[in-house]
């Protein structure tokens, strides 16, 4: 018990906050693995081909105003007309098109520190380095905002490499397993978890309700690692 308390204290020191606020995902095993839910006032990273989709689910659960930061020369927009189909609210979605990486970080810092935003979505070309990631964590830690770094280009098959936010509290690797008109099955890999051990789940999204529920346990996952996208 004392070890648990000590762990909690160390974590609180690292995260720079006394009381922990979480965003439960309402799936018992996932919340358990995260010790209650996703940490608010923290940076989370999403990798894999379906990173945006899962990040959108988190955004929707968090609510509030979403800021999406990207480079102006980026070719990949968020498509607001379809946001509602993914459970988003286009009215509460603000886009910032910025000239360079430094401006993105500057803006992200400002938004996270203001506490006025629900989520900050970062589309980065160049990965964050340790200092930059820590700085963002410092900005977010006093608020209940979520910093979501989307890194869909990163390939988990090649393992830990450059391009990963090392001080993120969690890192997820998300792929689409199966898709039908009414539900999408996602392979959800928690590849980094500062609250516990890495995990893997298969979850399903109901398109009508945007509700996330567990489809199967990790043990039942397909044998082919390529299909799940998680390295051995």
């Amino acid at each position, binding site marked *: 018990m004392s070890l648990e308390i000590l762990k909690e204290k160390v974590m609180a020191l690292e995260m720079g906050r006394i009381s922990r606020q979480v965003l439960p995902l309402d799936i018992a095993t996932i919340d358990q693995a995260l010790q209650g839910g996703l940490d608010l006032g923290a940076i989370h990273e999403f990798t894999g*081909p379906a990173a945006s*989709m899962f990040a959108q689910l988190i955004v929707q659960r968090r609510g509030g105003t979403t800021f999406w930061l990207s480079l102006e020369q980026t070719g990949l927009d968020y498509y607001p*007309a379809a946001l509602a*189909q993914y459970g988003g609210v286009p009215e509460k979605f603000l886009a910032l098109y910025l000239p360079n990486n430094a401006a993105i970080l500057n803006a992200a810092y*400002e938004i996270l520190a203001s506490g006025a935003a629900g989520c900050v979505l970062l589309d980065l070309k160049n990965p964050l380095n340790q200092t930059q990631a820590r700085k963002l964590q410092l900005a977010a830690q006093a608020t209940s905002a979520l910093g979501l770094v989307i890194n*869909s280009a990163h390939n988990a098959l090649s393992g830990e490499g450059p391009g990963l936010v090392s001080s993120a509290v969690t890192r997820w690797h998300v792929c*689409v397993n199966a898709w039908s008109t009414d539900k999408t099955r996602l392979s959800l890999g928690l590849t980094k978890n500062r609250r516990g051990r890495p995990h893997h789940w298969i979850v399903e999204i109901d398109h009508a309700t945007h509700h996330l529920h567990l489809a199967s346990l990790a043990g039942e996952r397909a044998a082919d690692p390529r299909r799940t996208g998680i390295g051995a």
Partner: protein
Amino acid sequence: MLASERLIRAEPGLAHKPFALVMREANRLYVSALSGAADNLGLAPGISLSDLQAAFPDILYLEADPLGDAKCLQRLLRWASRFTPRLVRGSACDLFLDIAGASHLFGDETVLLKIIQDRLAKLGFTARVGLADTKAAAWGFAHYGPDRSNIGKDNLRQAAGTLPVEALQMGPGPTILCRQLGLKTIHALLALPRATLASRIGLDGIKRIDQLLGEAVEVTRFARHQQRLVEEMQFPDPIGHNVGVEMALDTLLTRLCARLSSTQKGIRNANLTLARVDHAALSFSIQTIRPTCDVPALKRLFARHLEQLDVGFGIERMILHARHTAPLSNQQLGLGNRQADEQKDALDGLIDTLSNMFGYERVQYFTPADSHIPERAFSRDYALYPSPRQSWTTPLRKRPLRLFRKPVAVWLDKNAGMDVPESIIWQNQKCHLTPLTGPERIEPDWWRDDPQWYSGTRDYWWVQTDTGALLWLYRVADAARVQWFVHGLGS
């Protein structure tokens, strides 16, 4: 005259050409004004354009711009404020100047009249000026009296008698009646007993006569000049440090906001100019989403600019100018919903900060647009200048979460014809595709010239790759070849 002279001023080549200004009323084009050079052609404004062209086939005609004329007159009014601060626009092209107590600055009244007329002539405007003790009389003499007539108090009654009845501005009815009765001048009217006159031209007519002669009151509301919202500070010793600049800015903002808040207005756009000792001027602008008089918030917006300030050898002068103000929105304090209000305030503050940090054009939100073309189904708007929100309608078919601005061509490793390819090279990886739904056919807007849609009709498919991505693929086909593009990502 003003309308044509305004055009000549802008385009000196027109000066000696006769031309007409044409206006449209319902389906009829008629001449609203003629230029000075067209005066001796024997035409009068009001004739139709076709009549004009029948008489003078080669005459030049231009479209009249009443709004531009009004703006020009407004600028002339401001120009005239050099003679007196009390001035007002009349109907048509009339400007009234109250020169009581101002004429001696220019010599005397006669000199002032000449100065006004000459300076207007230099600007290219022909003006008739008249001076009298009442507003109605001044109008009458300027329009119908001898040019530059200066009528004193003593001979007003006598001089006014010579004016035609039109000078009374009684309106068309009584004026025509007077003409028909043979009462051509004001003198003829004054000779009649008032009681019988009142039954002919009405009490309003009597009132106009009294106003002209200064026996009845005519109230004039003079144009109020907008205060220039500028605060300035001059330093005997140049400021050589940022802290000093910030303190001075604080004072300037406090003063300006105090002035503004007394009229219930707030700043939307302000500019700060710092004059350096070496004659360099540094200028910074800020904008806010809502009019505000909040000194600390405004100071914070300026502070970002001041961070990288180079004071050089010192700042000797600071000028703060509120370029755009708007009435403060009197927000009712919500009962019980204070948290939401605070959240909204914080968000507005954040949008201000971001827009000022990176430029307002970089902070955008999306508004719906009505089009079946995917990339046209939304438009972007600046968050700093919000337009009324419209509601979004969810598209009937599944649309991608992320959309490529320019669709990305995909490489096929073998030609699959018109079918969805089995595998493609996507992001440097070979992916096997599983078609999910499709085709959905989207036709380009034929009335729009959009290079992206030159290739014609597109057939869209949703496909899943074996790497776990959802792609929104489309196919364009012409006689020569079939091409595939990725337009969006579903995940």
